[in-house]
């Protein structure tokens, strides 16, 4: 099994799916010769040609809107939006059409399509290049939202997303693209959508995160285990639909929960998880569910970026807080 980065794993998934299914197309800005600004689509145009790997005009609504049409016609478009902060021009097409076509037509038309983009801060990028606005998509009925944190999951989730019969928002933690490697099977496999993964079992506090926050959780876990504080680490992997069952089972065991995310705090996914635990596990809770999050601010430019990003220190403080009550 080759050792791959997340970027490699995504690239491999795209190659394999384009190979397997001639309906799969890749389109977006600079996805062709350039292979995408993060090289996720590297080599595709050379292999599958300009017809199936398309450098579109610079227009995100156009990219998503035509992908909807392609999907309705029976193709399997994988649209790339170049950065998290540039999905918004396409938001109308996502919420009004991609998410609704099946329901609107009572199943006559569907939108099996993937909209993938890099998200997350921590790479010292320009304004609009460091966002984490997953809630916009999670709160939109009719979309699915996926966010891998490991090369293995990246490949398996991408393949699952491409084969999914419904529109999938695929958020790629850009700061992890090349920061870790792991063995990734050559063969074709899927990681089913909607299933969280208990990465590490533990007894004292459940920590829920996804994407770019996972390495931070793992660091905190390694730090705290030395103090005999044992964390149960859950990587959500799919943000919508949410795997409530896995979270619940864990918190029923540990009685404590911290959710960590980069997104703005107010109305973040952390709030939903807290509310769910309130409803379904209040009497198992030994302490309030703690949220360690980005602030309700605009992602600062690089000099001040770190102020906003949740880190190990803040996570550990949050964990200690739940342990103190």
């Amino acid at each position, binding site marked *: 099994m080759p050792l791959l980065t997340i970027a490699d794993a995504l690239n491999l998934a795209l190659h394999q799916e384009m190979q397997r299914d001639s309906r799969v197309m890749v389109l977006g800005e600079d996805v062709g010769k350039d292979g995408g600004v993060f090289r996720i689509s590297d080599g595709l145009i050379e292999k599958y040609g300009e017809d199936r790997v398309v450098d579109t005009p610079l227009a995100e609504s156009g990219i998503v809107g035509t992908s*909807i049409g392609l999907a*309705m016609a*029976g193709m399997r478009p994988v649209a790339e939006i170049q950065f998290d902060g540039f999905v918004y021009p396409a938001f109308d097409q996502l919420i009004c059409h991609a998410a609704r076509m*099946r329901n609107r037509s009572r199943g006559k038309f569907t939108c099996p399509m993937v909209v993938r983009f890099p998200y997350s801060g921590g790479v010292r990028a320009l304004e609009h290049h460091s966002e984490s606005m997953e809630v916009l998509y999670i709160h939109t009925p009719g979309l699915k939202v996926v966010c891998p944190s490991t090369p293995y999951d990246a490949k398996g989730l991408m393949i699952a997303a491409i084969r999914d019969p419904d529109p999938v928002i695929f958020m790629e933690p850009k700061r992890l693209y090349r920061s870790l490697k792991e063995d990734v099977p050559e063969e074709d496999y899927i990681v089913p959508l909607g299933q969280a993964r208990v990465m590490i079992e533990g007894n004292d506090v459940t920590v829920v995160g996804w994407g770019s926050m996972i390495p931070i959780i793992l660091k905190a876990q390694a730090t705290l285990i030395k103090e005999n504080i044992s964390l149960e680490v859950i990587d959500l992997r799919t943000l919508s639909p949410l795997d*409530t069952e896995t979270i619940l089972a864990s918190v029923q065991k540990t009685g404590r929960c911290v959710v960590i995310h980069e997104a703005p705090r107010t109305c973040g996914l952390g709030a939903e998880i807290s509310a769910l635990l309130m409803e379904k596990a209040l009497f198992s809770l030994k302490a309030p569910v703690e949220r360690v999050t980005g602030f309700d601010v605009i992602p600062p430019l690089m000099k001040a970026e770190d102020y906003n990003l949740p880190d190990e220190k803040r996570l550990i403080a949050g964990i200690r807080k739940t342990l103190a009550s």
Partner: protein
Amino acid sequence: MTIIEKFNPLADEMFQVLGPDGRVVKPDLLPSWSDEKLREIYASMVFYRMADQKLISLQRQGRSGSYPSIEGQEAAQVGSGLAIQKSDFIFPAFRELAITHMHGVPLEKLYLYWMGNEWGSNFEANVAPISIPVGTHMLHATGFAWGLKMQKKSAITVSYFGDGATSEGDFYEAMNFAGVLNIPTVFFCQNNQWAISVSRAKQTAAKTLAQKAIACGMPGIQVDGNDIFAVHAVMFEAAERARSGHGPTLIEAVTYRYGNHTTSDDAGKYRSEAEVKEWRKRDPITRFKIFLQDKKLWDEDFEKKIIHESEGKIREAAEKAEKTPIPKPNEIFDYLYEKPTPALEEQKKYLSQFFPQP
């Protein structure tokens, strides 16, 4: 393939075959339709005007939701519909009763839709669901046609939209994608002079909407939208251009909305009766009737007969639609995804406490 290529959208001309007075302006461009076909086409326009009127009265009686009337736009829709093939795909906006029915959607489905039932959008025909967000669906038509091209199919797509829709960025992006990717699609704009209360002049400084095609390197043509022959001729060419790999065309069909924007609107607030009257003189049905009269293809008996037949069909469609049971509570959860999510299953169960299902 000459009309479109010869047309200069900047020359302030409008392509016409049958004048407003019912006299033929360009006899060489008349289609070679049989007398029977001509009479059928006339009958269909009358039928659509009546079917439209029916929905307006259903709404007044509280039996339908608000509805956007097509009265005045029959030739634009029927003329263009006659020029395409059943295997082609139509992407309507919302003011498209005639073309959607003509392309195969049963009238009762359309009535059901306006009565507020999603099953009214479950079309068997090659017609996309009605699209309410103005200007957005031309991208779907472009993408769909792109898909057809990828699949090496010979079908094309046609999107229908209004003058107001041409101000949305999505309209421009759709044309631009279609142009640069050489997509087999036709942009069919029904310029009915108004976007609710906003006149065509307030929508854009461009003299014609047809000239907007120039921005995307494709041909644009302005056609008399109340002249069924002209619309047909132009649409036929545009469809053939698309089908034969020559790319997209923008057609601006100049027409008029006689009625209110929808049954919730009062056009009296923003436009004069005189204006409406002026446009009624160029009525697409009257114009075609005079043409038929001149050919001795129309008389009062014929008119009575088609009115009678239409009434029956329309009554039947309305009855069918009204008899359709209202959706069950479960249905609001069941079509979001191929398989409802756990949260949706939970919510469905919760709702069943309040609306027990039989």
